[in-house]
């Protein structure tokens, strides 16, 4: 059984001191160790952004891809090696902005991926521009008069799109976050974890105290995660004017088959594990006969 140490390497993160990524990093390693899967059994696919360097700082099978393309690369990998657990770790710009179309379609596909989005409401690596989840009026270098766009609500969007596991975590609550990651890894199909994360360098208004005074756990209020309408009501609390940010599992169902369970070629065995020519020679010889 792998331990947190087995998921650790000697690469030092380049994140700013106090970055929310540290909390997410620790929660991930804790969840991996608790999951029972080894570093060669979990593929961590990341995009581009500060938090997407997560797999450079973690001893794990890793794919560090292009900005916004995390889910697409992960989908291809999962379909080719469905025996591995696949977790995507990327920011709000990557997941909801550049990768917005992939997000829409990955959700409704219900493919077996954990999609952890480090949502700090700002672009960090490019040094401070507003993101798809930024609050209106947020002043940055690309929005000197304040952002005009309404923020995207990833949690409501995912529920509306038919997501089967929708959760929100907080980078400072390691216990809750590692538990969410662990449950998501065991989920049948696509699992979104939107993680509230402070950016100490470029989004100082939304600092630790700002989040702490707003987050609450939905289970503390008797929320039923199988109730889709109740989940949607919680989802609409943030972004919004409620002053509250619901965390925990907002919506979950386990009775929907994952995409990969329904693809004939990989029902029995992952593609990567199958023989090079999976069918008898006669089958390949027969192909040309269709044209005679």
């Amino acid at each position, binding site marked *: 059984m792998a331990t947190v140490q087995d998921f650790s390497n000697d690469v030092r993160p380049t994140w700013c001191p106090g970055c929310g990524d540290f909390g997410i990093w620790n929660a991930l390693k804790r969840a991996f160790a608790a999951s029972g899967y080894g*570093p060669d059994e979990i593929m961590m*696919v990341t995009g581009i952004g500060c938090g997407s360097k997560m797999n450079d700082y973690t001893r794990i099978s890793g*794919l560090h*891809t292009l900005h916004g393309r995390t889910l697409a690369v992960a989908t291809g990998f999962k379909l080719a090696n469905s025996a591995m657990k696949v977790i995507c770790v990327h920011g709000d710009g990557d997941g909801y902005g550049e990768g917005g179309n*992939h997000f829409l379609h990955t959700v409704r596909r219900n493919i077996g991926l954990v999609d952890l989005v480090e949502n700090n409401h700002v672009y960090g690596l490019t040094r401070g521009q507003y993101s798809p989840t930024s609050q209106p009026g947020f002043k940055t270098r690309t929005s000197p008069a304040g952002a005009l766009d309404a923020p995207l609500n990833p949690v409501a969007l995912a529920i509306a799109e038919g997501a089967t596991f929708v959760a929100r975590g907080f980078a400072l609550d390691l216990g809750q976050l590692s538990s969410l990651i662990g449950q998501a890894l065991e989920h049948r199909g696509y699992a979104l974890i939107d993680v509230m994360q402070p950016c100490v360098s470029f989004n100082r208004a939304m600092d630790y105290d700002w989040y702490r005074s707003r987050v609450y756990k939905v289970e503390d209020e008797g929320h039923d995660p199988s109730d889709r309408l109740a989940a949607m009501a919680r989802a609409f609390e943030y972004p919004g004017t409620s002053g509250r940010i619901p965390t925990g599992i907002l919506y979950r169902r386990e009775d929907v088959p994952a995409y990969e369970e329904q693809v004939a070629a990989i029902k029995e065995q992952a593609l990567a594990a199958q023989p*090079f020519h999976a069918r008898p020679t006669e089958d390949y010889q027969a192909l040309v006969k269709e044209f005679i």
Partner: protein
Amino acid sequence: MVMIDLTFRIGGEAGQGVESGGAGFAKALTRGGYHVVGTPDYYERIRGGHNFFTIRASDEPVYAIDDEVDVLIAMDSESLVRHADKLSAKGAVVVDEATKIPEGALDGYSGTVARLPLLQIAIDNGAAVMVNTAALAAAAQLVGLDLQHVVGVITENFGRKGGAVAEANRQVAQQAARLAAERYGQVIRPGLADRPSEAQAVLDCNRAFAMGAIMAGCKFAAGYPMTPWTSVLEYLAGHADAYGLVVKHAEDEIGAVNMAVGAAHAGVRAMTGSSGGGFDLMVEGLSLAAAIEVPLVVYLAQRPGPATGLSTRTAQADLLMAIYSSHGEWPRIVLAPHTPEEHFQAALRAFNLAERYQSLVIVLSDEYSSTTVMSRPASLFAFEQVTIDRGKLLTRAEVETLGQPYLRFQMTADGVSPRLPPGNGPQSVYLASSNLHTEKGHITEDPQVAVQAADKRRLKGEGMQREMRAPYRYGPAEAELTLITWGSSYGAAREAMEQINAQGGSANLVQFVDLWPLPVDAVREALSATKRLVCIETNATGQFAHLLRAETGLRAESLLRYDGRPLTAGYILAHLEA
């Protein structure tokens, strides 16, 4: 030289079954002993408009259509207006009795106008939709093609819909042929000799490539529909369950290429494809494949641009894009096959080359190749020809005998690193990063590593170049005129060359398939004894002539066609300056 050379054209509105009827008739002619080439001409619409399908049938292999039409099967009066001026003097027109012949359309035409109650026969024996069966059966009668070939193809095509539909079509065919025989007999006597008995396949280049991909062990394909590449995706999807492939119709081309990269990283043979606009969207994803060194095959079926351009027409205008697109400097292979069997071979080679160099291989085709069916000996597509070379792919057992920590991106003399896909034990735990990375895979900005990584890519490119084959030569070893072609311009050019030589001229043809990296020494050698070089392309700027000059210093004249229509020998001869 060909003795028999018959061109059929079936014209009608979109939705009248012109393309499916044409493809079926091409197959019937093949079974009757002809070599055929058949190509559709259609507009970007589902219903209405004017579509036509042209089939050239000969006693010798043919690769291009002809400008002159011997038998016109007019499913509407528009067909008579459009194609009457292309009719040869001794041919025939098959048209329904009820179809109005536009005033003057057939004035001066000396061939047979076979007016038959085609629609009535279809209605009486089956249904109105079977009118094209009636028309094709009548045409078969007029040229002496055994009706059993037409009926055989129809029966197979409709077999899925049940015996009743097939039987009704058979009745329609027999009635129409009988009436045509009574009224007109056999109009054209091609005098077809006994044909060799070798089985012929009738297929377009897209399906030839896709079939090759399956035989080459392709396990994953992702794509988004776009004319004219779509039939590759459809073929693969149609065979996915039976052959154990995962085929994903993605949300867009960006999704498709990145899915293919992800699948390739897992160690399975993976591909995607598109036409120009979709390929544009994929380009960043291709650079990811280069950075993390995964084998990837991309099928690019060209059509005229820019933007949506002429969506159902043909062009060879994306050559330089295929070679140079993307930021950064990284090697790739571009192959431009010219026949169904070359497309098939290109698929077999592409997957091997992609794995040997852990790199991108683009197979460059075009709308003409994508939609034109040709009859070719079935043995050219035999599974026995398939050889698999997975390059430096390692198994888990092999990596464990290395006796040292495995480095996924190890520097080697040829730039290619041993590859162990993820999910293969502790040694397979590494990062593959789009950032500059160390041999182990970690992100770095070290200037020395930057140089090493660039050199690694350059070494791969040099290896690829050594692997590229010299162009094909057709015709005499030495000639006054050398025609240079790549991809689909071959067919019409080869025929033009043969006509020049038959008329006492002196011409040969050099056909390029391996376009990039251009094997410069082999190309110089192939063109060393030439006098006048004319490069024939379907683009407006002479892209290959430009490439040839840039890479070898050789200058060629350009003979270009860029109206979206396919080349013919007639076009080439008319535009070849004396």
